């Protein structure tokens, strides 16, 4: 199968890769060492593989690597700057929103994009839940995850 050359940046660093057109972005990112990108279901149901492509959250398991050509990809590795966790990552730790941690990288990217999209706006608990509906967690029961998110966004008075 033919390979195609793609250029992309991952967490601010430029890459030129010859990728097999049959590969998902999740596969290619993991091969490049971005192993925070987890694969749970492989069919867009669990969100463990969530990354941001040009700041938009996508399931990288159902996203062809080809589609990242010319784009800016963010994984949770890159959110941590100079050894300092991002506010979202810190919030997950402090809220105890991490147990086995398999879902955490994907959830953190979803929260990161949720936060950026709602900048300067108050959100409801309902919106937080709907905004994270594409991510499944086997361990936490979600309450701590919602608490982590609440601690980094401005929450509106209960609806």
């Amino acid at each position, binding site marked *: *199968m033919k390979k*195609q050359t793609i250029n992309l940046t991952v967490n601010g660093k430029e890459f030129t890769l010859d990728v097999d057109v*049959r*590969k998902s972005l999740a596969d290619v990112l993991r091969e490049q060492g971005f192993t925070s990108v987890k694969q749970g279901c492989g069919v867009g149901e669990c969100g463990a593989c969530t990354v941001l492509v040009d700041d*938009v959250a*996508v399931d990288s398991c*159902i996203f062809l690597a080809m589609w990242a050509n010319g784009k800016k990809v963010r994984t949770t590795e890159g959110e941590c700057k100079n050894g300092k966790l991002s506010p979202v990552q810190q919030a997950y730790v402090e809220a105890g929103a991490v147990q086995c941690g398999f879902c955490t990288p994907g959830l953190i990217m979803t929260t990161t994009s949720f936060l950026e999209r709602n900048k300067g706006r108050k959100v409801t608990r309902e919106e937080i839940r709907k905004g994270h*509906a594409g991510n499944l967690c086997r361990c936490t029961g979600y309450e701590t995850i919602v608490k982590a998110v609440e601690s980094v966004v401005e929450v509106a008075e209960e609806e």
Partner: protein
Amino acid sequence: MFPIEKYHMAESIQDAVRALAEDEKARVIAGGTDVLIRLHEGHGDYRNLVDINNLDELREIRMDEQGNVIIGALASFTNIIEHEVVRAHVPVIGEAVNTVGGPQVRNRGTMGGNICNGAVSADSACAALVHEVDLVIENAEGERVESIIGFHTGPGRVSLKPGDLLKHFRVRPENYRDFGACYYKYAMREAMDIATIGCAAAVKLDGETISELRLAYTVSAPTPIRCATAEQAAKGKPLTAATLAEIAQAVEADVKPRTSWRASMEFRLHVIRTLAQRVTRQAAERAGGTFK
């Protein structure tokens, strides 16, 4: 790795149409949220792909000089939900696609894919049916326009032929102006679930009577449908509970629900009658009416 055998990244609409014409087995891939899952499951029918992701003109959402609302086949659900033109003129389309999957799926999935896959549960189908959207399609012979009415021909089947590329949806002004519309998705879970029943209504009023009702369902027959009997029953009727009850009664002649693991036929019929009332009422209220 996806079992893709042939792959072509189209550089223009002409290039996509040519690639589709050259290979009878070639299929379009847009957001890939259906196609890649089919491939993941090992289906044979999506092995030759024509990728349209670089055709930015197919992502456009706008209003043209004639007042038609144009929604590009490749516009993502998120783009549709957030777009000014959709919010101002055909909000029910945004409301409907906002019920699809989770954010990641809405960021990639397209209305083009949702209609072309022919799914009887497609969340955009009811909204498209009540606005009687046109589909602007191109193939090697040229361009043609088909109505969404009759576009679904059976479970998972639509009237696209090999070689066809859907370019955009067009909503004519007479099909959205003065209508209030509403979509409700009944599903077992609150999110990330396929509809048990989906229902949309569009209502036009003449003072406090219904001059036109358009009522559509998903998962209530082998294809998404409009309900001629219920629509007829609503004509010229006042905004009252009795009218809603009549519509709910009449709709039974239009639907053919069946039993599946999600819900029994009887339960589906109950949901269908309940939604007919709820959705018609809300659409009429959005058209400026008040119920007595």
